[in-house]
């Protein structure tokens, strides 16, 4: 009786550990240091449409990084949009709203008038439809 209770507790703890590991797993996917550096340097900005853009003239390697990341973003947007019965553009634009909010001070983002802005300490300029 006693043993079986301990056994059960052990099983429950194991299951809880597995669940935690499952939840934590996506957090391990971090930005590539080169991408992080290009963002911090203001070479890469977050656009309103949910994709990344080159701010001014950037090295070819940075341009390639932008294209690669945008292709990956588009694939994710497309899959999620389908699940949510929305269009790719709707899902990407919604993400753009959120991503502009999440920029850190010093990073670049696109304002509703299309210009590049540097994120300051306050809220960024966003499309009035953004949540």
């Amino acid at each position, binding site marked *: 009786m006693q043993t079986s209770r301990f056994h059960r507790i052990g099983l429950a703890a194991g299951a809880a550990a597995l669940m935690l590991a499952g939840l934590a797993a*996506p*957090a391990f*996917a*971090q*930005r*590539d240091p080169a991408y992080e550096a290009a963002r911090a340097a203001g070479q890469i900005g977050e656009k*309103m*449409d949910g994709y990344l853009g080159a701010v001014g003239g950037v090295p070819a390697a940075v341009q390639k990084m932008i294209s690669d*990341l945008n292709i*990956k*973003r588009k694939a*994710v947007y497309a899959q*999620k949009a389908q*699940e*949510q019965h*929305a269009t790719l*553009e*709707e*899902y990407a*634009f*919604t*993400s753009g*709203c*959120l*991503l502009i909010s*999440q920029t850190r001070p010093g990073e670049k983002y696109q304002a509703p*008038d*299309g210009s590049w802005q540097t994120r300051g300490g306050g809220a960024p300029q966003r*499309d009035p*439809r*953004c*949540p």
Partner: protein
Amino acid sequence: MTVAGMGYGQPGRRGLPQGAGRAAAVLVTGAMMLSGCISVNAPDKPIVIELNINIKQEVIYRLADDASKTIESHGDIF
């Protein structure tokens, strides 16, 4: 009533004689000739083409929660 709505090209439908539309067109053309020239000024500000104009706010609000989760779970590309 607009010039286009005066029955020109739709004879008889609005009860106007077919000549009325033609007369109106002549009048408009005459007025344009009297005013001399039409000036078109370029706007001061750059023209921003809003490609996302068809995206509705209600759709954005509906998708926001899911999009937020998607961004969190793809930390390497966002």
